[in-house]
């Protein structure tokens, strides 16, 4: 299978690889997928609790090149957005940006799920309602 140039670029130069202290209250952690399925994504955001702006994002991904690229791209897009804006990132945006073929759409879905999971975790730590925010999607 041929990969798009953008997927190859993210694979060769993944952005924002790393881990944050998940015990911190300004850090939200989302881990989605399962080893048996061949994909696990961990995505973390560090939020400015005064402004609600995501100041940093990190990821680690076990998965194919498209899964790595989807999560790498997600961290790029998250930085500088507010938490509310971040919830607007759709898997289809990732599909379009990376030119993912149909068999790789699940990678983008996983990335969207990881974003939501990280935001949920952050909001739960902040004592904000969680479930109601996400069903809007």
């Amino acid at each position: 299978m041929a990969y798009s140039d953008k997927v190859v670029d993210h694979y060769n130069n993944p952005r924002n690889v790393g881990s944050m202290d998940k015990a911190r209250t300004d850090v939200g952690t989302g881990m989605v997928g399962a080893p048996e399925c061949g994909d696990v994504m961990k995505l973390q955001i560090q939020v400015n609790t005064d402004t609600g702006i995501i100041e940093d994002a990190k990821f680690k991904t076990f998965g194919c090149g498209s899964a790595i690229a989807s999560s790498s791209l997600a961290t790029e897009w998250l930085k500088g957005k507010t938490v509310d804006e971040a919830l607007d990132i759709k898997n289809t945006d990732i599909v379009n940006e990376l030119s993912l073929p149909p068999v790789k759409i699940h990678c983008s879905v996983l990335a969207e799920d990881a974003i939501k999971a990280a935001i949920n975790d952050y909001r739960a730590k902040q004592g904000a309602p969680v479930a109601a925010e996400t069903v809007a999607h």
Partner: protein
Amino acid sequence: MSKPIYFDNHATTPVDPRVLNAMIPYFTENFGNAASRNHAYGWAAEDAVEKGRKQIASLIGATSKEIVFTSGATESNNLAIKGVAEMYAEKGNHIITAATEHKAVLDTCKHLEKKGCRITYLPLQGDGLIDLDMLRDAITDKTILISIMYANNEIGVIQPMAEIGRIAKERGVLLHTDAVQACGEIPVNVIADGIDLLSITGHKLYGPKGVGALYVRRKSPRVQLTAQMDGGGHERGMRSGTLNVPAIVGLGAACELAQQEMAVESVRLRGLRDRLRAKLEANLEEVYINGSMEHRLPNNLNMSFAYVEGESLLMGINDIAVSSGSACTSATLEPSYVLKALGLGDDLAHTSIRFGLGRFNTEAEVDYVAQKMIDVVNKLRELSPLWEMFKDGVDLSKVQWTAH
């Protein structure tokens, strides 16, 4: 970009230039139909075909009259299994095979199941070998055929064919083996192994694609097959169709070369394979060999690189041609059924790589591949949340994953 280093010799092999040279005259000057009995063109083609038959027979300890030419091992497997099922239908309708057979065997058996045959799919032991007691117990009065591959295409594990042959003989059951990976790599002898039907193909032993053969035993017992194609009654009525003379010449030449060079070449390949394994194991933690090392083709290595997904690994080593058991590389999104049959979890099956060494690989290539693998595995583990958890002492089997 120069071409990738080719370590996928279980998928196919390049044609040896010596094989190609033997074939070329049979496309142009000696183009005759081997079935033309009345002129020199036909005689030359027939002579070439008979020489090929001898060369193939010699490699497997058969006689040339026992060789039936086909289009490849898929056809040979179909002809052997369907041909026996139809011919011996009055004797019984039960066939025994194994879960890790090639799809050409498994899907043929599934087809026969729909037609009223009963098929037993033997499970494998953790090392990839079949359990001989289980095989013995599976045989019934209705069993007409056992079909067990000689050596597996993914893990290279060699089955105890002589013992399987003895069990088949004791119970009066025919034995077929798909020997495409074994022929040319290790000694195969239909007499010593008690094989009644054997499939072989050209393109796994440095011959051309699109040609294969089926060995059909003629003495004790004389095996009969129902033809699966109607036509001119070529190949003793078992396989109609004008013979592909240049390809048969190529298959014959490839068998002769393999036979001549096997003793030396298998030692060389084993050395390269062991060198690759040693370098990987010395420099990487958490790597696992899939299948028995003891009962294995000299040119095969199948390893799982835990916590690194197979397709992303292939992407990082895109100047090396290998295969992965990862689901992402297959059309079905299911990881390798062969590895799963060994009892390997999906997680490790997703991290497996098959290295298939061949005649044209060198020590320098092995060293390059080993180093590249080490670099890419280390890089991807830095990216892997599973590796991080493993290093933090998390028991991954106890984690509540979110399925998707």
